[in-house]
């Protein structure tokens, strides 16, 4: 890896000032269908502080509210109670100022726009002029190593390439914060590992804070400085595990004993979250009781 950035291990040195918190989540609660029979307590009393430059993963079984938390930080939905501050502003103001970029599980590229034009979309909406947009799109294509594909249509690209374009689009307007909801979730295992390495390189180069939703333990451990473990019904944070595998992560990191140690740590935290319930009867030859919706691979 040729990352020259200082993005991970120095978070302690830059975080001495409380103003450097990129995201502050304060006693946040989210209730869907309040007062009706199908009421869902998606999140209850979430407290979280994310330092600038941090790479933080949210992991937990299905229904723990990790995607809801991401959407609340993005101000795509309004919380029932509590507060989110992004760069010291309200989440809504941060959205209006486009202080963050976002990438989803589906790349969500527009079929009718070329790859280059897709990357330019947020810049168009921000009112950048054409020359500036084109220049930035070229830089981003270079960053995600797709310079030869600017004129292609998105559907002519492989899933992994489409996801890289979506990340380029999310980072195009230099947002200080990147929110990602399982961006590797729809990819094959080998593509996914390659994509994770790319993601580390890209995020280091862009020097952005990242909040990353995933249901894969190795992915969370490989990518993050911190892994936030969440439990369902109601959605809460149960553990925050420091990882810090260092800046020089590569394919060998995946064979490293420290990597396995952290995986075990996260897995055990998840087991405590949702062990086999008393009413859950497991069939023979069933996979060992682990939390639902979590990938161990």
């Amino acid at each position, binding site marked *: 890896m040729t990352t020259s950035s200082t993005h991970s291990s120095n978070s302690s040195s830059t975080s001495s000032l409380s103003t450097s918190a990129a995201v502050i989540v304060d006693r946040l609660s989210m209730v869907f269908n309040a007062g009706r029979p199908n009421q869902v307590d998606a999140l209850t009393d979430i407290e979280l502080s994310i330092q600038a430059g941090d790479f933080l993963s949210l992991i937990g079984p299905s229904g723990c509210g990790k995607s809801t938390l991401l959407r609340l930080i*993005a101000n*795509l939905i309004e919380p029932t109670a509590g507060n989110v501050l992004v760069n010291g502003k309200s989440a809504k103001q941060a959205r209006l100022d486009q202080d963050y970029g*976002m990438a*989803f599980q589906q790349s969500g590229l527009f079929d009718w726009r*070329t790859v280059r034009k897709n990357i330019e979309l947020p810049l168009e*909406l921000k009112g950048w002029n054409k020359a500036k947009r084109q220049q930035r799109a070229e830089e981003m294509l270079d960053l995600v190593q797709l310079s030869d594909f600017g004129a292609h*249509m998105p559907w002519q690209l492989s899933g992994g390439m489409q996801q890289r374009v979506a990340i380029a689009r999310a980072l195009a307007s230099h947002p200080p914060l990147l929110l990602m909801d399982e961006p590797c979730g729809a990819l094959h295992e080998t593509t996914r590992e390659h994509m994770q390495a790319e993601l580390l390189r890209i995020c280091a180069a862009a020097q952005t804070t990242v909040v990353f939703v995933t249901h894969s333990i190795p992915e969370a451990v490989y990518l993050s400085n911190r892994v936030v473990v969440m439990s369902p019904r109601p959605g809460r944070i149960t553990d925050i595990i420091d990882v810090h595998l260092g800046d020089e992560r590569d394919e060998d990191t995946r064979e490293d004993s420290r990597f396995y140690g952290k995986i075990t740590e996260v897995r055990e935290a998840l087991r405590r979250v949702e062990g086999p319930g008393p009413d859950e009867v497991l069939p023979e030859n069933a996979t060992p009781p682990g939390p639902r919706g979590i990938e161990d691979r």
Partner: protein
Amino acid sequence: MITRGLRRAALFVVALLCVAALWELYKAFGPEEGGEIFGWRLIPRASDRAMPHTWEMWQRLFDPEVRGRDTPIWRAILGYSWYTFRMALVGLLLGGIFGVALAVVMSRFKVIERGLLPYVIASQTIPLIALAPQVAAFGGNWDLPKWMWVSSLGAFLAFFPIAVATLRGLSSAPAASLELMDSYAASWWSTLVKLKFPAAIPSMVPGLKLAATASVIGVIVSEISTGVRGVGFASLTYGQKATSDPAQVYTAVFGAASLGLVMFGFIVGIEAIAMRNRPREVA
């Protein structure tokens, strides 16, 4: 590409010949004065007056419209059809603009959609043939040429399929894309122009195809009752001479049919332009 076009053209000719053969077959064996089934006159007459020979129709194309003139009737029909085509095109354009605008307003305000949709549907059951002279007479108050009123009746039929297809198309943008535009704090207008409208185009194409034929029908029917001299009016006047010249009316029918085909081809061309760069649908 070219061989496919040739095959299609060949198929078209074969189909046409098959229809002609069926026509002649019935004419050869069908009862001259028709027939009854359980007291209902259901079996058509095969007489020369009711069913002229196909080759007579073909030959009629090269005879003059009225005895004593030089120009063959196909030239006259071509002129009428071209006039009708232009009126139908204007109708399609007006109907398209109105239909899309209506769909945008309805998708923006659900209250308007609920309030207006019944009227939009009711508008399509109004007997156009009765309405046409009223509209033309009504138009006498303004200083507009009569053909514009005929076009507007084409538009009246064309706007409906376009409005319905566009309304459906505007809601077809995926939730994730809408969320993305939300995350950019994009305005309603930007979301419409950059996302919802482009996403609606694949649904709009079938509506446009229906609208194109609807516009032709609207114009032809309105010509008959307003006396604007297009191919619809020609088929009416030729039909009145069916006793003495039964093949003549079919020349106008050929004209109207080719007009519909040309219009459809025009829309297919638009589709090819609008849908280039889109993923091919897996049939």
